[in-house]
């Protein structure tokens, strides 16, 4: 392919990593050089991803003794990975551009850029890897950068970082196990050699574990609960790039790798128990995360819960194992990356300009930040599923697939859509409309251009991918499925009018609900209070806010219990060693010391007793 | 072996033994004991037990004496008056002992002779015969001879260290 072989592949990993390492060695003050370096690296990354587009090639080398275990350094691109690489490149470039402005006066800029570039390198590597173990290597590397990024704001962010490390680590552990079992079941670790392992026997374990690894990275339940905490504690570009975009891209990439009909690692068929399990996880993620999002009173936290709930749609769509569902899931993934980043970026703009994201302190920002408001509105309408924005189309595809797989999943997805719309109506109303209210000074200006440009590009993409949805669907997504499409084309207006009508009714209901709520409480922020404080729900919400349902907290309680038992056992053993033995030894020794009075006669008596012992030994042996 | 020499040796032994008990200086007492051992060794040799004689010589005349000397030198001196008081007491108690021993010894000897027991015939016929005392002493046990030399050196140094310096101090 004319010089585009391995060299280009590997540059996608090497160049960002190298740039990151160079940044680590640059002095802290060289802000411009660093920015330029990040800019160049991400731009290079994006251009390479574009150039690589259309290239389908595998490249692989054997090395020393490791080859005996099937761990080769093998890379490949196919339609799926090209598509993901392109999305990664675009998002990485835009967020990098944005962060130049956002991080200008932050002292952790250097560390952020370092981790950022390394993260991009690792994501590229994980997507490019053809060998499962190689992929695992990059995958685990991301855990390290995640941990590092969460600690950027200082040591006091430790609990959140540990929480993320634990949850993502558990899912990575599952993936590791899954990779092992998959390799065992398939007899090879090369992904292009593994196709459609039947999900039976040991392979069930392999499938479930790999699936857990994939959705764990994407931030689905039950590995989600670190994301809202990170929203409070991590720098905002981090939220936009990792939980907002890259992690979703990577997690869904692997999920599709596993589940893709025909060419996936496992034979994943519709209407099977495993499919139902995956869909159930998706549906539950949608419902619970969006329900939590509904009641949030903080811009970033609210968004972070949506970052979780949207994963539910993707998992639900792919979990149906129907072509329409997978196309819908992938499309939703791209759309989510676009509008969720845009939303996080607008949250960042608000945070930077007003100094807070607490919705109780700010309102009516639209007057001061009109561009931010418009970008926010476009993205919010997208995520809520208003036509003709991109979110509407991908959601409709997922609805279609869910309807076909089981009405219960459809209802769950619909409920999610209702609450999504309601929560964004509340958020938009509270933040940008209504009586202007600002934290301290009234001199809030529009965000700088470097922050606005990425937001505008993303908002434009929302509209573009909605109006011209045959571009992403036809060029990027449907080729991934290849023959499995069976001649279908899902581009254009949704094919099932009934579902569209229902969706629009739901949206109208959400608007009605909003006005009811606003009328009831008199302010935008209180638009969903009647749901929040409804009898029964109130109780559950309170518990949820107290993190009763946080799997991490439950895990911690369980592990604390085990730790308590282990501690008890350890103490007991320690007591035996440190307390009991020492006590015995000390008292014996003390006794001996007191016994050893220095009296000669006593020594003689001991010696005689020794003599008796010897005589006894001989007496026993002679007889 | 003729009886007079044996009796003479036995007599010497009694004298040495009594001296060891009666002499007031512990050091001289120890030397008397060594003399006793030497006489005993000679007696054993004449009675046909050269090995026993040799061992007696090594152990009692050599080692035990040195140990005694060391031991005595390690113990502190009692005040003169107290010491003399002790010795006087002891002398009074043991005055009759030599006479008693002598009478017993004479009686036992007479009894043996009267019963015709040949003293020289007591020796064990199975015991090894050595060509000469010289061979036994200088050749076969030469390691012990070396040992004796060193023991005597040790005794000498013990006296130097423990007595001489004490007198100086």
């Amino acid at each position: 392919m004319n010089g585009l072989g391995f060299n280009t592949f590997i540059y996608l990993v090497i160049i960002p990593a190298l740039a990151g390492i160079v940044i680590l060695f640059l002095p802290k003050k060289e802000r411009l050089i660093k920015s330029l370096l990040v800019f160049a690296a991400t731009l290079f990354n994006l251009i390479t991803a574009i150039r690589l587009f259309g290239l389908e090639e595998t490249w692989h080398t054997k090395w020393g003794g490791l080859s005996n275990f099937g761990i080769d350094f093998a890379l490949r691109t196919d339609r799926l990975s090209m598509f993901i690489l392109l999305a990664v490149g675009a998002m990485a470039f835009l967020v990098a551009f944005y962060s130049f402005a956002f991080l200008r006066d932050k002292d952790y800029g250097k560390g952020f850029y370092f981790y950022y570039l390394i993260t991009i390198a690792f994501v590229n590597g994980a997507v490019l890897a053809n060998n499962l173990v190689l992929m695992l290597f990059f995958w685990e590397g991301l855990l390290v950068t995640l941990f590092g990024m969460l600690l950027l704001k200082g040591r006091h962010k430790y609990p959140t970082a540990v929480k993320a490390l634990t949850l993502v680590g558990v899912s990575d552990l599952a993936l590791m196990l899954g990779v092992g079992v998959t390799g065992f079941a398939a007899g090879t670790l090369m992904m292009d050699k593994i196709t459609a392992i039947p999900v039976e026997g040991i392979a069930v374990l392999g499938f479930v574990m790999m699936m857990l690894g994939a959705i764990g990275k994407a931030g689905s339940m039950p590995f989600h609960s670190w994301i809202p905490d990170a929203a409070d504690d991590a720098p905002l570009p981090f939220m936009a790039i990792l939980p907002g975009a890259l992690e979703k891209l990577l997690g869904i990439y692997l999920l599709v790798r596993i589940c893709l009909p025909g060419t996936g690692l496992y034979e994943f068929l519709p209407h099977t128990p495993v499919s139902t399990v995956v869909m159930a996880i998706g549906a539950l993620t949608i419902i619970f995360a969006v329900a939590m999002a509904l009641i949030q009173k903080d811009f970033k936290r609210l968004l972070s819960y949506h970052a979780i709930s949207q994963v539910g749609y993707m998992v639900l769509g792919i979990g149906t194992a129907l072509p329409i569902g997978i196309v819908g899931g992938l499309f939703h993934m791209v759309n989510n990356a676009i509008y969720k980043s845009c939303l996080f970026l607008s949250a960042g703009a608000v945070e930077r300009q007003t100094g807070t994201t607490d919705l109780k302190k700010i309102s009516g920002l639209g007057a001061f930040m009109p561009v931010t408001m418009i970008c926010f509105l476009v993205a919010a309408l997208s995520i809520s599923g208003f036509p003709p924005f991109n979110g509407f189309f991908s959601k409709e595809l997922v609805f279609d697939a869910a309807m076909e797989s089981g009405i219960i999943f459809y209802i769950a997805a619909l409920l999610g859509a209702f609450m999504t719309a309601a929560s964004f109506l509340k958020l938009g109303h509270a933040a940008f409309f209504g009586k202007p209210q600002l934290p301290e000074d009234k001199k809030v200006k529009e965000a700088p251009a470097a922050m606005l440009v990425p937001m505008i590009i993303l908002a434009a993409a929302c509209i573009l991918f909605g109006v011209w949805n045959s571009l992403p669907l036809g060029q990027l997504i449907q080729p991934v499925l290849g023959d499995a499409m069976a001649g279908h084309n899902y581009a254009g207006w949704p094919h099932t009018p009934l579902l569209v009508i229902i969706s629009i009714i739901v949206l109208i209901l959400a608007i009605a609900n909003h006005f009811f709520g606003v009328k009831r409480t008199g302010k935008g922020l209180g638009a969903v209070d009647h749901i929040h404080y409804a009898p029964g729900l109130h109780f559950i919400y309170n518990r949820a806010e107290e993190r009763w349902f946080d799997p991490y907290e439950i895990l911690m309680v369980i592990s604390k219990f085990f730790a308590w038992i282990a501690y008890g056992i350890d103490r007991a053993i320690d007591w035996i060693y440190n307390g009991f033995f020492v006590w015995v030894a000390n008292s014996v020794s003390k006794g001996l010391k007191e016994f050893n009075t220095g009296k000669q006669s006593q020594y003689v008596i001991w010696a005689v007793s020794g003599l008796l012992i010897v005589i006894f030994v001989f007496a026993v042996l002679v007889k | 072996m003729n009886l007079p020499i044996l009796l003479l040796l036995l007599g010497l032994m009694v004298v040495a033994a009594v001296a060891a008990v009666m002499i007031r200086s512990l050091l001289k007492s120890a030397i008397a004991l060594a003399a006793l051992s030497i006489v005993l060794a000679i007696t054993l040799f004449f009675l046909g037990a050269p090995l026993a004689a040799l061992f007696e010589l090594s152990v009692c005349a050599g080692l035990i004496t040195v140990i005694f000397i060391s031991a005595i030198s390690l113990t502190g001196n009692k005040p003169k008056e107290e010491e003399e008081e002790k010795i006087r007491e002891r002398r009074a108690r043991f005055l009759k002992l030599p006479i008693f021993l002598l009478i017993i010894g004479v009686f036992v000897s007479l009894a043996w002779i009267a019963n015709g027991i040949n003293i020289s015939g007591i020796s064990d016929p199975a015991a090894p015969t050595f060509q000469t005392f010289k061979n036994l002493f200088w050749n076969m046990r030469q390691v012990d001879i070396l040992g004796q030399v060193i023991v005597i050196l040790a005794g000498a140094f013990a006296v130097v260290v423990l007595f001489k310096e004490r007198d100086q101090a």
Partner: protein
Amino acid sequence: MDNLLLIITGSWIALPLLVILICNLLDKKTGKSWALPAAIVVSIGQMITTGLGLLQLGLTKSGFINFTIFWNVNDFEEIARSAWASAFFSVDTLSLVVMFAIGMVSLISVLTAKKMNPDKALNFTNLLMVLIMGMNGLAMVADLFSLYVFLEITGVASFILIALYKDKKGLEGSFKYLIMSAMASAMILAGIAIMNAVTGGVTFSHISGLFASGSSLHTFHAISLVLLVAGIAIKAGLAPFHGWLPDAYESAPASVSVLLGGIVTKMAGVYAILRLAQDVFINAKGFNYSLLLLATVSIVYGAVAALKQKDFKRILAYSSISQIGYIVLGAVCGSPLGFIGAMLHFFNHATFKSTLFVNSAALESQVKTRNIEEMGGLAKQMPLTGTSSVLALLSTAGIPPLAGFWSKLLIIIAVWQTGHSLIAGIAVFASVFTLAYFLMIQRKVFYGPAEEKFAGVREVKGGLAVSQVMLSVITVVMGIIFPLVLLFFQTRGMI
């Protein structure tokens, strides 16, 4: 070659004798000033000659060298076969290894004694020479009675050395040692007498021939063995015969306690056990079992009793009891591997215990106390002492790759292999215990919080420093080249 051999073998007795003659026959002043240097020459000479002797053994591939000391006897062969003859010395690998240790520890002792006043120096040298001759003789004899004679020489010389300064404590310790030693002598002598009476001979070869493997013990044999075991156990300081040992170690002057702890008591007791276990009573089961039991008791007792001690030297004394237990364990467990382990542990023990006694001397001279409760944080002021004592303590506790680890390992493996797994377990446990209390000492004395009153303390110089460095180097090097040492014994066919 024969002439060289004659010089080598002769030097082991002749050299000390020569020094005694020269120093005492010259005029007083010269004699006194020459005494310590002469002693150093003797010690180094002994290390060299024993090294050459080992080389000779390796070259000739023979197990031992026999030689007479005064003059050659004509019918050597006939006398050698006699059951009563003690006409010649005999050295084998064990003898040479322990004699090397004798030379080494003597050298250290003299270096430690450097500061003595001249009067003392002469007496010290005289007695040291007697002691060296006694111990060399002990290492070379091949006859029970001669063994006894040299045991006594060693004993007498050390009594006087302990009481060298004639302070109250020294006299007391010496006296206790003397009394216990006299008991031991009586038992050993009685044992030898009975042995002679029932077997008709006293040479090692004669007696060992009478203890055929598997045969049951004659009652008089048993009585004789009981007396010998008890007597030697007192000399060795095996629990519960050990009462005198801590007192003697504690009360002796610094340079003498190096000698006592490093080599004398080991020669008097442990070497005798090694020798008898290897050459004489190898098939006498009661001998092995009773000593195995006593050794185990010693290991545990020494380790436990050391815990509560406050005096540095007393701790070392109790640790010695424990280590003696290990050596005896290896010697009597009945496998060649264990014997090699015991021999090497003997040597290693001489190295590290000497180091520790030198450390104790250094501390005493600089800090003026031996009570570990009063010390603290001295490693900063005394880096050499601190480091060498850490090495020695770790070697004692058996931490790889130091010398003590290997020999202890060999012993424990051998004990395990011969089926005494319980005893091996106890030995391992006690070893861990040793480590624990030694680390405690480390922390307390060298690495604890620095005491202000020791701010002016300086590192030792001269002989003490040299000995610490030398011994530490030996400990480390011996640990590193240990596989080579084992290889040597393998080529000698001893394992």
